[in-house]
């Protein structure tokens, strides 16, 4: 039987720390297949781990390589990289909005740019997902005029719209109501069952311990190393 290509693969990836806000990582190896979820536990207050920009080919590793759907980001032309990034959704650790577009335009942007779906169709899906997280209406305003908690939940919506191959969550529960965490985990579990690969960086122990997510592989950052966690034991990953 032919082996399925991994959606995301880190091979011996090392990045030296570029600033006091960004942590370096050392010799990270892991792969993420279709429908798999990798949860990476972070210590509270830990500086930014650049796994998302690496996974999206936005940051080149100092050594090693990152493959997306079997292709090394370093070998892709810029136009190809953009197309491939269109298959990835991300919830940002920092502010993840374009301020000169209104909230709905932000939510529909990637889907309208990369697919032939009409804006009305995408908006309908966005509204449905928003209702799932308790948002009855999408604010008709620029993101700077919208409450941070609402924006955080709308980032979840944006990540789940359409049919991405990979979703990256960078501490997505930061700034969100605790009561909504199970709703997000449930939605992520459903996405994973549809074949979406998920990379989830979190400080939240509930995510690390959640058993309803599906095919989950758990890791922890130990300094600059990624350590696999299984049945309470930790081993180099």
């Amino acid at each position, binding site marked *: 039987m032919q082996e399925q290509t991994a959606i995301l693969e880190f091979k011996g990836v090392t990045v030296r720390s570029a600033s006091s806000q960004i942590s370096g990582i050392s010799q990270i190896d892991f792969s993420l297949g279709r429908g798999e979820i990798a949860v990476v536990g972070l210590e509270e207050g830990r500086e930014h781990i650049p796994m998302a*920009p690496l996974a999206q080919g936005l940051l080149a590793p100092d050594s090693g390589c990152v493959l997306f759907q079997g292709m090394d980001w370093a070998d892709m032309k810029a136009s190809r990289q953009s197309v491939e990034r269109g*298959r*990835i959704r991300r919830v940002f650790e920092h502010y993840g909005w374009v*301020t*000169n577009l209104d909230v709905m*335009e932000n939510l529909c942007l*990637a889907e*309208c740019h990369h697919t032939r779906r009409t*804006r009305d169709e995408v908006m309908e899906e966005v509204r449905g997902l928003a209702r799932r997280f308790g948002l009855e209406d999408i604010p008709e305003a620029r993101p700077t005029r919208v409450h941070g908690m609402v924006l955080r939940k709308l980032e979840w919506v944006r990540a789940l719209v359409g049919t991405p191959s990979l979703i990256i969550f960078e501490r997505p529960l930061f700034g969100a109501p605790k009561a909504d965490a199970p709703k997000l985990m449930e939605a992520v579990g459903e996405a994973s069952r549809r074949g979406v690969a998920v990379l989830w960086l979190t400080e939240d122990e509930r995510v690390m311990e959640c058993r309803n997510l599906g095919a989950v592989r758990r890791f922890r950052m130990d300094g600059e190393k990624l350590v696999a966690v299984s049945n309470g034991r930790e081993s180099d990953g």
Partner: protein
Amino acid sequence: MSFIASIGQGAINLYHRIRWIVSISTAIMQLAFRPSSWTKPVRMVLTRQIVFTGYDAIGFVAVVALLTGISVVVQAQVWMGRLGQSELLGPLLVTVIVREVGPLLVNFIVIGRSATAMAAELAGMKVRHEVEVLDSQGLDPLVFLVMPRAISMALSVFGLAMLFVVFSFGSGYLCGAFLGTGPGDPGIFARSVVRGVSSYDFYNILAKTLIPGLLTGVIAANEGLSVEGVATDIPQAVTRTVVRATLAVLVVSVIVSVLTYI
């Protein structure tokens, strides 16, 4: 560094800068002719930029054109009449308004009004990491941010220059008729202007609006996106945009003028 070495270094830097701007402009033109570049969000950016740079500027350009028409056209009518060369009024006005003053003034208005705003907007986006947000969603900044803005700037400068010519000739004629310095009959004035227009003038105004408009857009975008994460660098980016875009407009204008006459 010695004086001569610093001149040499300055020349090398200028060469690299020009090469960079030309290569971005070329890439933008290639992208613009590729239908797949014009997705719905990119078309939306183009439309909004045309509204801001072109449509919203019509009032101001009209006022400048009216005032220019009054001062230039009326003076030309008076002096050509005194010199007994009224038949040269049309060619003279075409040379001054269509070939030189119109495109130059419109380019300067667009630099002051829109290129500065564009540089500040893009620099702000860079500082707030919004360019990374776009890039991470697969929206190439060159396709989504730079191309539609530069193209809209070129089209807007062309459209505004045509309006400028019409408004300035119209105001000049009306003022001349009011003061009794003009030919009186609008038909004579119009025929005189039309006689002065050659096919070269068409290429001239195209070259003096589309090329500088595109370069202004590229320079503004380049300066804006060159800001590296510090908000205090935004005003400098805006200043550099004004200086470099003004120089680019003047250089292109001189080259096209020289090519028109040789």
